[in-house]
């Protein structure tokens, strides 16, 4: 089977600290996962999550801080609301809602993060390819 296309969207604060620590201690991460670092998961709206699926992601994981740790205030709550809404849309489209995952971390939880990422990668690989892979949009140059 073609390797799955996995996207992780990672908040710059606690989750990125975990990821950095995991890298420094040479913990292995799923090879099919691409990570985008953003300042806060609250920056990610429904459209950006949908776009990941439109562009062929088989699974998307949002890596965010715990609700009470957000450096800006409502970031993770915005994340929860967006995940709920996008999951409803994915369900209408017949895309398994489990392809969109949300996990929160404290800054010291590098081992748990690595475990969660491997779990995510294995679960999506077991699900197979995303049924809704459209032709790609031609982006403005």
């Amino acid at each position, binding site marked *: 089977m073609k390797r799955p296309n996995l996207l992780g969207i990672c908040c710059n604060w606690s989750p990125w600290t975990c990821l950095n620590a995991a890298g420094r201690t040479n913990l292995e991460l799923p090879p099919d996962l691409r990570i985008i670092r953003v300042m806060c998961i609250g920056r990610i*709206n*429904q*459209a*950006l999550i*949908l*776009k990941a*699926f*439109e562009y062929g992601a088989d699974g998307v994981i949002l890596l965010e801080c715990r609700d009470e740790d957000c450096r800006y205030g409502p970031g993770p709550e915005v994340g929860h609301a967006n995940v709920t*809404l996008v999951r*409803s*849309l994915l*369900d*209408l*489209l*017949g*895309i398994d809602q489990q392809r969109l995952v949300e996990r929160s971390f404290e800054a010291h939880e590098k081992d748990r993060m690595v475990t969660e990422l491997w779990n995510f990668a294995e679960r999506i690989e077991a699900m197979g390819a995303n*049924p*809704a*892979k*459209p*032709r790609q*949009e*031609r*982006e*403005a*140059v």
Partner: protein
Amino acid sequence: MDSARITKIIRDNALYQCLECGKCSAACPRMLAGKQYSPRLLAQKLISERDDEAFIESSVWECLTCSLCQERCPSGVDISRVILEMRSLLAAEKGLKGYRAHDGALHSWMRMMTSPELKQNRLGWVSADLKTAETGKVAFFSGCAPYFDVFFAHLGVDTLAIARDSVRLLNFLDIEPVLLKNERCCGHDLLWAGDRENFETLCRLNYEEFKKAGIEEIIVSCPECYSMLGTHMPEVIPECDIKVTLLLDLLQKEVRKGGKAFKPFETTVTYQDPCRLGRVSGCYEAPRYLLGQIPGLVLREMENSGRGAICCGNSGFINCDAYSKNIQVQRLQEVSATGAQLLVTACPKCMIHLSCAMRDPARNEKVSVPIRDLTSLLAQGIEWTG
């Protein structure tokens, strides 16, 4: 830019007939909302100054495509069609531009529907009281209603009520429509955003679904779906022989036959003509006729109504900006000037956009008015007589 193709677009749509009278610009809601925007100047640039690509591009992408300019044009220039074809041309050459509202979320899911393997889960809204059939010759096309219902839930807009009430009205007329599990979006927003390729894919997939189910007639309540399935789909699929019926037309015909009436509803309403229903499909009379059949209901027209109706501020979910908001506020002020207690419209997008403008906390009290779809209004009161 492909100059030969531009010339063809100009010839096909009578743009050389432009007299430079400027009525299009004077009527343009965007211009009246304060934006420097001129369809007349676009015509001039397309005809004689094609090297000003920056101007042409921005004008082509910024149009709301409400067709009011076309209505006012004394020479019969098909400006909307010029915009539509120029968008396809520019998109093919330079990529999709134009600011997509909601960051393009709607266009994303519409494009996702172009995957042939898609198995949607879109019929959760069908309540137990609705009578629908598994097979048959007549289908009801619910369009994007289930998706809008999720995406615009925060506006308090219930687009699924329109779908349910449409089926109720059909049931009342003894029609048990087929609801297709895998119908796609009609493609309106993709086509008007310049993405012709994906629009055509949606058309083909929809046509295949209709044919597979043995459908001969599609009933639609959304004016955009009506224009896409009825006018644009046969252009993509020449052998298309499916009859597309607008629910309002069907109702008007049935009510005229007699035997049906509406329960009295004492209220004053005003009616927002959706651009895709009025100017694009020429349907002005049916909604007014049907409103006139409700005893006790008084229809007060807005200052700009019928052929001159002002746009709800956006049509293909592109280029929603401060000027769109101005247009919406102006429109809502026209509504309150009529003294109507209820604003009736016939397009889910008018409902979404005008409800959005009403949420402005600074203007809320001045422009807020209950808004309902005509289909729901009719479904609540239709009954058999004698």
